[in-house]
């Protein structure tokens, strides 16, 4: 047991400030445990999102001492015992109250992506599709995403330049990559990736990759290959001609 100091953002869209709390912390606790203890004992109406408390649902995204993190996977012993831990809501999206942000924009973006469309002729007589593990390894990496939106929070295009009108963000770039690289999918999303979803706006600083709690190589394995596909399509005359004649995906 040790008494630890916290500064938690209290307020809503109209404004707010960091408020001081002190609480006894036990061995092995994570930051979310401390927040929930403050909530139970000192601030019953402190708003915070959480669910699984095991890094699997991506609900408890906040900024801890300025760094975007999952509160449930951030151990208290990552910080010095005399260090004050300050926790704020993720900044790229409007605050609702205290540590809770309005992430509804992300749900709207997901809806804009055309759904998976498999080729039914690939099914065998028993209704099974065949795919080989080596062909799906890379999309399974993208499908590990828990939609915590920490990558969206840290993306310069969304955070600093507020270009939510032009760029769909790293979360949805890897969702697009998981569809575009799916061995069974037949939908052509490359024009939309360029025109509607703004693949060109990412300047590959890899900040999204750095904060991903699932350690997905968002930039190198997802966004860069998508950018290459866009380039191949729109700027490679030979491929363009090939497709004009023979059709099909790149």
């Amino acid at each position, binding site marked *: 047991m040790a008494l630890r100091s916290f500064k938690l953002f209290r307020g*809503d869209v109209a404004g707010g400030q960091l408020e001081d709390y002190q609480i006894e912390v*036990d*061995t*092995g*606790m*994570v930051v979310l*445990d401390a927040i929930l203890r403050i*909530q*139970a*004992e000192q601030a*019953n*109406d*402190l*708003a*915070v*999102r*959480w*669910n*699984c*408390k*095991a*890094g*699997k*649902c*991506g*609900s408890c995204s906040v900024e801890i001492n300025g760094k975007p993190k999952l509160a449930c*996977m951030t*151990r208290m012993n990552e910080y010095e015992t005399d260090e004050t831990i300050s926790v704020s809501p993720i900044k790229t999206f409007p605050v*609702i*109250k*205290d540590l*809770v942000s*309005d*992430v*509804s924009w992300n*749900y709207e973006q*997901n*809806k804009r992506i055309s*759904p*998976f469309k*498999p080729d039914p002729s690939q099914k065998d007589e028993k*209704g*099974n*599709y*065949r*795919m*080989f*593990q080596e062909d*799906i390894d890379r*999309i*399974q990496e993208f*499908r*590990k995403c*828990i*939609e915590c939106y920490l990558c969206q929070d840290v993306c310069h295009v969304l955070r600093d330049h507020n270009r939510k009108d032009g760029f769909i963000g790293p979360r949805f770039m890897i*969702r697009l990559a*998981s*569809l575009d690289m*799916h061995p069974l999918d037949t939908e052509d999303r490359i024009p939309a990736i360029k025109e509607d979803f703004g693949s060109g706006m990412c300047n590959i600083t890899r900040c999204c990759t750095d904060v991903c709690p699932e350690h997905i190589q968002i930039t190198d394995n997802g966004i860069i290959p998508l950018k290459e596909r866009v380039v191949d399509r729109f700027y490679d005359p030979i491929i363009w001609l090939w497709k004009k004649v023979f059709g099909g995906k790149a």
Partner: protein
Amino acid sequence: MLDISEIQIIEHDVIVVGAGGAGLSAAIECSSQGLSTGLVCKSLLGKAHTVMAEGGVAAALGNVDNRDHWKVHFRDTMRGGKFLNVWRMAELHAKQAPTRVRELEEWGAVFDRTKKGLINQRNFGGHRYPRLAHVGDRTGLEIIRTLQDHGIHQGIEVYMECTGLDLLQDGDRTSGMVAMWRETGQFVIFKAGAVILATGGGGKGWKVTSNSWEYSGDGHAMAYEAGAELMDMEFTQFHPTGMVWPPSVHGTLVTEGVRGEGGILVNSEGQRFMFDNIPERFASETADTEEEAARWLAGDKDARRPPELLTRDVVARAIRKEVKAGRGSPHGGAFLDIASQRNAEDIKKKLPSMYHQFKVLAELDITTDSMEVGPTLHYMMGGIRVDADTQMSRVPGLFACGECSGGMHGANRLGGNSLSDLLVFGKLAGVGAAQYLQGISTPPKVMDDQAKAVIRNATNILNRESGQNPYLLHEELEENMQSNVGIVRTAELLSAGIAKLESLKKSYKEVKAKGSSQYNPGWHEALALRNLIITAESVARAALLREESRGAHTRLDFPGEQDEWLHYNVVIYKGDDGKMAAGKIEREKPSPELERIANLSIDELEKEVAGEG
């Protein structure tokens, strides 16, 4: 005065409450049946408890062992449930699960593959063959995301962070639900001729649990208040392997997949104690030497399964026994060891999230060290009593599917049968609701007085001058259920538990949430507490009535299964006096064919299904 005309009204043919696997499946089916469908969920979409399911979804695809067949899955399910399952539900489940899993693939799920490119399947407790389609140890995430990404294009209206408070009825017919927007604290009346509850369980009434705050038995309680029956509530599954250290993660799930991949359980004396805990019913199908267990792990199809893969009730009790006998791990559990059975690369590939979870939360490397594990309240076999084919409760227009419904799993659920249950019965509930709505000629009305009463009860919690802290009341509830309605029970403990629940009910009348109605977790906690208490009481009362030990229900004062009790289910309902009543109802006789299949020896059944090609 409350002016009802100022309350928001949203109208649909059907509303589905809960957006885990069951709710999403039900909503997708409702929409495909042409119904205007609203999906109401307490959290953000995609965060429901399904996301935490790890090991896999059980379906007799036969991709890894072609001897598998729905009949074997059905037999395994009945044996695991100690023959108390609703026969028809277990039949529908085993028959339809493979189609549902293939449908997920059609909708974009990407399961791990066999060498031949088919969906891979892994071993799990109580399943005769490798049967669980999986994605590493994050199968639930794959399933919820697939349903979510498919569902958002099906014309379903999704209402996120919206808490259901109570159902509305016109006479006894369902006419909608009053709910509250968590963000603003404003109320909303959903008008709908049918309501499908898919709200999961109520495990948050216990102290050591793998369940999150959402698991407060909302559906159980709303249905109970509306006149539905709850069935089999005494059967609460304690998953044998929850984390026990550090204290803040006590109860967090460690997937059964660890044992499916070869993990062994060892006590402080280094002994593999599960060999001493093989029940007679499973003896002929379980390895009795470490040598045979090792051959099984190496893929020898003639070897029998290691005893670590016995059903969850058996393993949980065995761990408890070791701890009681002083042979536990330093923090009061058993050692779960995969490091000595598999190489580090395999472990990271097959169990990545377990590797990560222990590394971060316990500072332990599972590729070199043993985990410490112990029982954690994980799942409720019991729930709203429904018709096996339509999923409708005895309240017209009120349906239930997934964990909040009862009957499918009997006295103990097999791992992997929950994800398949969600898919199969979610869809059937959607079909059932569509059929019901077709059959009603006059739409039910929403009664203003009912809605007003629900809203007044909710706002009273905020408006009281002073009162009890809801978080502390919740802690008292958890302590009570943990010590009095836990993994082993006696009449004395259960009676003490019920007495404490009675006093908690009195305290609850004085519960007070501080602050405003806007995104106020203290208020949300207080509202959930009513449901937690109702669900907890139904478990305690059902457990007191069932005077035998069967599956997950263990009575020290009534050891062993009693044949007499196999003929009854315990049901809980609201009596005419407004108090909770518990009663025995006689079970329906199974069809002779199902009874025959369930009672065949495994050799006979294997011969039979081989003949069917």
